[in-house]
Each structure stands twice: as structure tokens, then as C-alpha cells.
């Protein structure tokens, strides 16, 4: 590692704007770091060195021409391989999209480019963002920089590991049930799920359209806020995009960094207390509550009785939407086609293509979704899950009548060893126990490093009301200041 790879994004942006460092040397430092460690970490599916260096030189040229640069101009960023990048391979971690080069940029990617950010490459993920460990990637798992024998979380384990391993100061993830926050928690990094509709889904390979939310991954809360400000805001290309400005997240992060939380009321969800957190995680959470109290926050226990049904409802709603969304992979317009011998029918070729192109978890979820949407089962499964979604939203609304934000551990357990949860898919689903309620409600949530359990990172989750993303940044930044920086993992 060098000073350029250990610096925060905020520091890099300032140094580049001031001419103390060139965007090109910052980019080269990160490409060198990737070359040194990524054979072991496998955070990246594709490194675009030429594209990154060209983007960096363009920023340096703009500065030389006297242009004022934005706060993240010239700062490198890694992008989860589920967002379309024009001309650069985009696989969503699946064999069905191997070698596909999108003909257009996702809105988020276009915004990164407009801000002068340097896209280093595309990061590994569970196939179609379905998983909590990257073990369901068709291209092999990413390893956690803290312990290469353990998972980096998922689905966005590549983005989190790239940031944790100092291969990139910032990354983009997507969070459908916890895929930004849980990897953040187990890699000791910051992961943010913005308000649903606060970041555009245009050009995002769809998994569960009513839940998918892109957001930032970073090593500091302020860095996450700076990236949030770049990617957030209304997009006319996404009909579920909220037509409102980005909440004042950067200001909130800076205010929180002062460490004063007096006047802030934080709710601890009573229903999470006895539910599934391993002892080391529960201990860090207790210490965190004490820390937050010391910073001036008032801690209140609140009841959200329907959170217990969030995981079951999610594993009906998300598979139902995925069974519909993934119907587009039919071997006709793009992606894999298998078995087309000139004799077989379209239906046979389609079935062979999808069988060969999808992994086991994706097939399980497609079948589960098709079941939940079947005539005769619809009311009992999908219909009932949608009603649970209403009840969970009401729980959040009632809780936010009493407190400013809710807190919980981000995930019930620290990074687990590879293979520990793959034989029983439901055991993998439990990783998202605390993150899923927020997705069903649509509000924002952040995971911030809270401490270590047996040498492995534990995250605190802060959940806020819809479009009050700034609140969670303030709380997270205060905790970050109190905890202090984690020592970098030895790689």
C-alpha cells in the first residue's frame, strides 16, 4: 500500500483538485494495488486499466486547462458487475451474460463519469445479486481481506472487498435485501442503501425491481456521503425515481463527525434482541449502544412486531419478481444461446440455454417465484407477503413517530468460512435477517464498522425514514469518530 491507496476519497479529490497529485498517479497506484493483491482477493471480474487511465488523463487535462474540478474528480471507483458499462463486460456474475458488452451506460455509471470519477473495473457478486457470500458467483468467490478463508458477504462482496483491501477508495453496490450493508459489515467498511427511488435503477440488471437500490461502499462515512451525492437524485429514465433533491448527506456526515448526538433519539428494535445474533455480535452491539449514549443520544426500546415476518415475506416477493425479470434471458437478443442445432425448437433452445446459463441458486429462486405466483397459491404466498409488507411499513412509520432512527447489528454473524451455509440455502438467507425489513419499507439504512469480534469486523446498522438519509449519516459518522479507524487487514 502507498499513501495514495490508504488516503480517503475526500483527501484524494482535494489533492487532485489542488494539483498535489495527478489523477493518473492516483489511478496507477490503485491499478498496482489490484495487480498485487487481487489474485488472492478476487474482488474484480474485469479490470479496465486502459479506460481508467484514459479517464484519469482527461481529468488531469481538464485541470491543466484551468477547469474547476468536483470533489471526486479523478478519484477511482469500482462498480458492481450488475450495472451496465458501455463497451465494458457486464456479467451480473452469471454465465448467461459471459462476454456481453452493454451498448449503453447505466445512469449511475454516466453520473460517475460526469463527476470525473475513474472507473477501475467491475466487481464480483453472487449471480444476479442472489446470495450473501459471493459463493454463488459463476466466476468463483471473492475472499475477505480480513481472512482469505472467509466470505466477504454478498451479493456485493467484490465491491466491499475491493474497498476493504485498499484496491479502490470507493465502490458502487446494489442492495435488494442487504447486499451492500452485509458485505460492508463483514469487511469492516461502510455500506449504504439509500432510500428506494433515491438512486436510479436505469441500466441496473434487474433482480427484484421493487427492492433493488444502488448505493455507495466506502471506508469512511464522509466518503460514502460524497459518492451518494454524485450518484443520487432524480432520473427521468427510471419511473420509480423520486423527483426530489438528494438529502444533505455530506453536511450530515460532517456534522456527525463532531461526535455530538445530543437530542437524537435512537430506537432499539425489541424483536431483534433475542433473534439470532451470535454472542460476539451481540456484545459489540451492547458496547455500541453504550457509546451512542455517551455521545448524547437517547436510546429507546421500540416494538416492531411484524419484523419477524420480514424474511419470509422477502423470500416470496424477491423470488416472484426475479422469476418475471429473468424471463428476459431467452437466448434471443443478447447473452448465451445453447443447443441451437438448426433442428431444435425455440422452446427447447430457450430451456437448454437457461439451464446452462443459470446457477443453482438462481434456478431455485425462479422456481420458488413461479410457485408463489401460481394460481391457487398466489393468495397464500405472494398476496400474503404483500400484506406483510404493508404491516412492516406501518411498524416503521409508528417507530419513527417516537425515534429519529433505528439501530441494530447489521448482520447476525461475522464473516463465516466458505462452504458453511451453501448446503442449506435457508441458512444463507438468515444473513439478511436484520437488513431485509428496510428493503420492504423502502427507507435508507447504513452499515458502519462498530468493532471486532474475535478479530473480525462487526457492523452497526442505522435505519432512517424515507428520504431522511441524512439522519443515518449523522449517527454513523458520530459512531465512526468514537470507534476510530480499524487497522487495515494484513494482506
Amino acid at each position, binding site marked *: 500500500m502507498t499513501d495514495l491507496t490508504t488516503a480517503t476519497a475526500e483527501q484524494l479529490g482535494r489533492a487532485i483538485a489542488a494539483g498535489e497529485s495527478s489523477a493518473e498517479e492516483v489511478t496507477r497506484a490503485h491499478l498496482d494495488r489490484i495487480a498485487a493483491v487481487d489474485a488472492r482477493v478476487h474482488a474484480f471480474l474485469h479490470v479496465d486499466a486502459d479506460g481508467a487511465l484514459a479517464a484519469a488523463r482527461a481529468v488531469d487535462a481538464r485541470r491543466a486547462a484551468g477547469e474547476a474540478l468536483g470533489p471526486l474528480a479523478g478519484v477511482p471507483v469500482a462498480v458492481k458487475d450488475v450495472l451496465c458499462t458501455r463497451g465494458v463486460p457486464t456479467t451480473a456474475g452469471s454465465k448467461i451474460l459471459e462476454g456481453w*458488452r452493454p*451498448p449503453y451506460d447505466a445512469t449511475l455509471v454516466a453520473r460517475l463519469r460526469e463527476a470525473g470519477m475513474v472507473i477501475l473495473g467491475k466487481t464480483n457478486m453472487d449471480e444476479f445479486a442472489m446470495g450473501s457470500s459471493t459463493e454463488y458467483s459463476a466466476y468463483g468467490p471473492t475472499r475477505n481481506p480480513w481472512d482469505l478463508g472467509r466470505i466477504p458477504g454478498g451479493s456485493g462482496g467484490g465491491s466491499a472487498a475491493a474497498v476493504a483491501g485498499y484496491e479502490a477508495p470507493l465502490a458502487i453496490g446494489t442492495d435488494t435485501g442487504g447486499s451492500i450493508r452485509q458485505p460492508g459489515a463483514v469487511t469492516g467498511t461502510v455500506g449504504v442503501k439509500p432510500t*428506494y*427511488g433515491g438512486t436510479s435503477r436505469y441500466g441496473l440488471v434487474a433482480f427484484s425491481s*421493487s427492492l433493488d437500490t444502488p448505493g455507495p461502499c466506502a471506508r469512511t462515512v464522509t466518503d460514502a456521503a460524497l459518492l451518494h451525492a454524485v450518484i443520487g437524485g432524480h432520473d427521468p429514465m427510471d*419511473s*420509480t425515481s*423520486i423527483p426530489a433533491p438528494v438529502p444533505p448527506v455530506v453536511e450530515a456526515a460532517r456534522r456527525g463527525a463532531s461526535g455530538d448526538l445530543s437530542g437524537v433519539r435512537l430506537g432499539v428494535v425489541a424483536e431483534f434482541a433475542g433473534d439470532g445474533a451470535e454472542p460476539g455480535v451481540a456484545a459489540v452491539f451492547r458496547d455500541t449502544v453504550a457509546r451512542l449514549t455517551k455521545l448524547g443520544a437517547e436510546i429507546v426500546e421500540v416494538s416492531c412486531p*411484524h419484523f419477524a*415476518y420480514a*424474511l*419470509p*415475506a422477502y*423470500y*416470496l416477493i424477491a423470488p416472484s419478481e426475479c*422469476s418475471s425479470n429473468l424471463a428476459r434471458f*431467452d*437466448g*434471443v*437478443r*443478447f*447473452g*448465451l444461446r445453447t443447443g*441451437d442445432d*438448426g433442428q*431444435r*425448437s*425455440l422452446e*427447447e*433452445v430457450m*430451456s437448454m440455454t*437457461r*439451464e446452462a446459463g443459470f446457477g*443453482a441458486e438462481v*434456478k*431455485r429462486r*425462479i*422456481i*420458488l417465484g*413461479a*410457485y408463489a405466483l*401460481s394460481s391457487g397459491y398466489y393468495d*397464500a*404466498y405472494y*398476496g*400474503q*407477503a*404483500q*400484506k*406483510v*409488507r*404493508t*404491516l412492516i*411499513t406501518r411498524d416503521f412509520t409508528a417507530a419513527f413517530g417516537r425515534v429519529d432512527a433505528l439501530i441494530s447489528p447489521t448482520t447476525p454473524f461475522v464473516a463465516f468460512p466458505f462452504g458453511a451455509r451453501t448446503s*442449506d*440455502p*435457508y441458512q444463507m438467507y438468515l444473513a439478511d435477517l436484520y437488513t431485509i425489513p428496510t428493503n420492504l*419499507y*423502502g427507507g435508507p439504512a447504513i452499515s458502519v464498522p462498530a468493532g471486532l469480534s474475535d478479530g473480525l469486523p462487526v457492523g452497526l446498522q442505522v435505519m432512517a425514514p*424515507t428520504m431522511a438519509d441524512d439522519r443515518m449519516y449523522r449517527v454513523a459518522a458520530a459512531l465512526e469518530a468514537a470507534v476510530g479507524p480499524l487497522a487495515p487487514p494484513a494482506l
Partner: protein
Amino acid sequence: MAAISREEVAHLARLSRLAVTDAELDQFAGQLDVILQAVARVGEVVAADIPPTSHSVPLTNVLRADEVRPGLARDEALAGAPDAYEDRFRVPRILDEEA
């Protein structure tokens, strides 16, 4: 009692255009049964008078101005096609030869 049978899984796989193997059917049937037993808990919530939520954003009928904008060029649209023929997507046969 199992929530889902091997035959039901086979039927759903066929509807989903997945040419699953016998080994997969054996594996998926057991795994999906465990998952379905767990998610069936949503039925415990008495919710007769609760409206369903399909989406968290209360937006309806989002419209845009009806203006001509640039789209993908034909070559770009076809660039990712598994098979193209005379500027079109070529597909396997849809009808039987006799038809």
C-alpha cells in the same frame, strides 16, 4: 407433509423454461420444501383488511414528454445477439416443420 412435490418442481421448471436434470430435481425439491415451510409463516399474520403493498414509492402514472430522442443504432442493438441475419435477430424455429 411436504409443501412441494418433485412433480410440482418439475412442472414449474418446465413453465420457467429450465431444462433441469434429474439430480437437480432431487436436490431442489428438498431444498424448496425447507424454504417453503419457512416462508409459509406469512400466513400466520391475520391480514384480511390489510391492503397489499407492491411498491414503496407512492408514484402512479409517471409520464414523460412525448419527444423524439436518440436510441440505439441497429448495429449496436444487434451487437450482443447470439445470432443475427440480414439486420435481424435470428431465432430457432417457432412452428413445427409441418405447420
